[in-house]
């Protein structure tokens, strides 16, 4: 790691003030993406602003209509929450499959979303459920949040405060993990929401995206068989040593089918 200064604000206001005056500074949440990056010397922030001690960013609220998760809430807490399991079981399941147990004990939803790693799990749920991302400045709809590989709608210095997931009628999540890193190679989050069917695909493209064709087919009939004959095009999908774009395209269908089946369709 390159040397940096370390700050640990106690409130969101303090954090905002710090990030405002430290243009080369970076926010540190759970650190499970940032610290490995720093160790490889792939980033050289002047300052780290550790937002792990800010109470306002923590906690879960579950109502009949929404699950709201503070940005600083760790994956493990979401995975184990009896209320989340009851309200949106697919969300708890997704959280229980992020990284490994040690990663889940430290990593946070805010950190994961702000990074927008194409191979992360949470973007699937945010997009699949049509969640709303709350920040220090505004609220951002899921459909407007993910902009590309490691790119989001967040401005410089804008901090995610919480994410609000509307409770769907039903939802399912299936992923095929990269065998080495266990990140998502292809994931599919399928939900029947008040606003209609949503199918979000993560891992396969530069960032999470919706699969309109599958949404249409599932709207006609919410059943795994509805997806059977569909094939996502390979163009534009990620291709690497672990999976070609063509294989990823194939897995999109398989994972979506299995996610629908998991959701009871």
């Amino acid at each position: 790691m390159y040397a940096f200064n370390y700050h640990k604000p106690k409130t969101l206001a303090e954090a905002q003030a710090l990030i405002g005056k430290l243009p080369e500074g970076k926010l540190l949440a759970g650190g499970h993406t940032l610290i490995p990056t720093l160790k490889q010397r792939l980033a050289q922030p002047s300052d780290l602003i550790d937002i792990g001690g800010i109470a306002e960013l923590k906690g879960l609220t579950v109502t009949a209509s929404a699950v709201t998760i503070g940005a600083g809430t760790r994956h493990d807490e979401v995975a184990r929450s009896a209320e989340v399991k009851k309200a949106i079981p697919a969300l708890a399941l997704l959280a229980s499959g992020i990284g490994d147990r040690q990663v889940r004990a430290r990593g946070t939803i805010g950190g994961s979303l702000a990074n927008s790693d194409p191979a992360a799990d949470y973007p699937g749920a945010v997009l699949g459920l049509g969640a709303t991302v709350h920040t220090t400045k505004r609220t951002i709809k899921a459909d407007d949040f993910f902009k590309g590989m490691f790119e989001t709608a967040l401005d410089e210095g804008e901090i995610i405060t919480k994410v609000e997931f509307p409770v769907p009628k039903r939802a399912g999540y299936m992923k095929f993990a990269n065998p080495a890193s266990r990140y998502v190679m292809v994931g599919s989050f399928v939900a029947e929401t008040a606003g209609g069917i949503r199918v979000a695909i993560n891992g396969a493209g530069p960032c999470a995206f919706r699969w309109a064709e599958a949404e249409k087919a599932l709207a006609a009939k919410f059943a795994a068989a509805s997806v059977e004959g569909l094939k996502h095009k390979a163009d534009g999908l990620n291709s690497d040593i672990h999976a070609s774009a063509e294989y990823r395209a194939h897995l999109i269908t398989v994972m979506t089918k299995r996610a629908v089946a998991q959701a009871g369709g």
Partner: protein
Amino acid sequence: MNAPTGIGASVRRKEDYRFITGQGTYTDDINRPGQAYAYFLRSPHAHAKIKSIDISAAKSSPGVLGIFTGADLAADKVGGLICGWTVTGKDGTPHKAPPHPVIALDTVRCVGDQVALVVAETREQARDAAEKINVDYQALPAVVDPAATLKSGAPQLHAEAPGNLCYDWDFGDKAATEAAFSKAAHTVKLDLVNNRLSPNAMEPRVAIGEYDRATDTLTCYSTSQNPHVLRLIMCAFIFGMPEHKMRVVAPDVGGGFGSKIFCYAEEVACVWATRKVGRPVKWTSDRTEAFLTDAHGRDHVTHAELALDKDGKFLALKCSTIANMGAYLSTFASSVPSYLYALLLAGQYTTPAIYAEVKAVFTNTTPVDAYRGAGRPEATYVVERLVELAARQLKMDPVEIRKKNFIPPNAFPYQTPVAVAYDSGQYALSMDEALKLVDYKGFAARRAASEAKGKLRGIGFAAYIEACGIAPSSVVGSLGAGVGLWESASIRFNPTGSVSVFTGSHSHGQGHETTFAQVVSDKMGVPIDQVEIVHGDTQRVPMGMGTYGSRSLAVGGSAIVRACDKLIAKGKKIAAHLLEAAVEDIEYDKGTFKVAGTDKSVNMQQVCFTAYVPHKYPADLEPGFEENGFYDPSNFTYPAGTHIAEVEVDPGTGHVTVAKWVAVDDFGKVVNPMIVEGQVHGGVAQGVGQALLEQVIYDKQSGQLLTGSMMDYCLPRAEDLPSYTVATTETPCPHNPLGVKGCGEAGAIAAPAALMNAITDALGVEIDMPATPEKVWRAAQTRVTRQAAE
């Protein structure tokens, strides 16, 4: 009642307490007073000329104590790294072993090649400074593929090795083999890639160099499997200094699997640099460096053919292999795809004619050398995939075809057509036991059950052979080895009866502190907790050749038995004197010396005490109770067995689940069954890793390593592996005193072939390792298309 502790007992390991409480001492846990830290600037190019290196800005970086380049080592006449085994090619010329500088001089030949060494007060400061070194490279075209490097027009790595050819070697009877093929009823052909692997011992390599002015002695703390060999290479070939002025300490070592046999640039550089900066110098590899610099394994491209008569009897086998050596020849690299490979191509079978050709080649990749099994997994893979394919093509049962061709138990010692003479074996016995354990008869029902779930099920066999206990010095010498491959042991009884055993074998997970103690306890009649095994320090252990090739018990253990026998002989003289009897009348059994036919006896403790307090003692006998033993085996040992794998394939994703694993091995006599089972488990896991998950990949154009971290190089996790059913049959080795054969590599040798045979059985399509999900999915698609066509 006390649990048994002798030979054959599953004694719980003596070394475990320190490991489970965090008290182990690995090399990185050692910190020397005043120590400074080394960081190596490495080449970002696979192939480039170094036009200039500017260290001026780096020199003034905070904490820097010294920055060194290849020129500095050359000025001090530091020799290059060596290959200790010379293979002679078809044309009678020795292999090409181009210079391998510790730090590159004017050319870098693989990504990660050492370019400069920075020594600083802290590790981070050393790295900070290294980033300020300005190297002007002229990038050159690179080649990473072993077949491509032989093509005309390929980038050339070394002036000393035209055409990138290290050697073109052959073995066996070409004429007899061709004659057998010409009259064969069936010929089975197969092209195979044996994928390149990264060993990935969990402990990364570490080296500390330290100079003691008072004794004018250099000490190297190193994560080595064979500290004495490292000392020999550094003193005799690199520094040109007497061995008694160099101490090598390899304390607790966190796994080796071959990768820690070799003499590496970093340990040499740290030992050299310590005198330059006047401080101990420590280097700790990170995992990224480990992927770049730890010698890789395998990387063969092979065409193989098997000739059979109309009844499925093997007539001949031939194969042609290109073996990738990487950018330079590592310590034992040349022997791996030659003598450790072709000599095993008879497998467990009576194949009368065998011919192998091997071209070893240089490419712009990390050097390749011995990795768990070293040549023998490659041989078993060729033989067992061919045999399985032959069964499929001849529509024979894979068990039947093997049994038809097994060397029968009454044929031993059995001279194969590829030089080696197998000592003993009961191949059908292991096979039958394995069939029982896997419930072969029930397979059809299990396959049907899988198919009902939409899954494909396959079963695969590997009846493997290995040659362990490397080896008779005279034999390996005649084949080009630069060293003798004996082992040494020294056993010292302390006056009150406790025992220190000094062995040249090195334990880095194998449990020698327990197994060797069992042998000594059993032979000498001393409680096991009174026996201490000392290894891994050239200053404490007089001589040794180290641990590799599953040789520790067969060779190192035999040296211990030699020393025990000498002590018993001496003890008889002391006992005879004490008991006022003739030496010839003294009988010895497990710690008791007895006058034959009487009840007069003395025990080991009394004898030992008398040796040190020789008040009543034979006049012509030296006092003291300590003996050395050297052992040079008369032959390799030949462990063998059958592994059976069963897999379930998800045709939708290509994911393979290993559903069942049965291993029945014959390791000869077993000293500690618990430890032996553990060795099999670990070996199988690495073999499954090779077949399913692991593969080093370089970018073909740039030569960049694409699998440079555990994010991209897939190591098996608990979830990827099944529980194993492990059993042994026991056919003692007839030529060493313990009757043991060696067990460390068997799993890694048998597993890849067994697993690939199972996967290809499920798919009905031949594919190469590793059977990644995408590759399996594509094969499953082919199967569907083919079925539709039928």
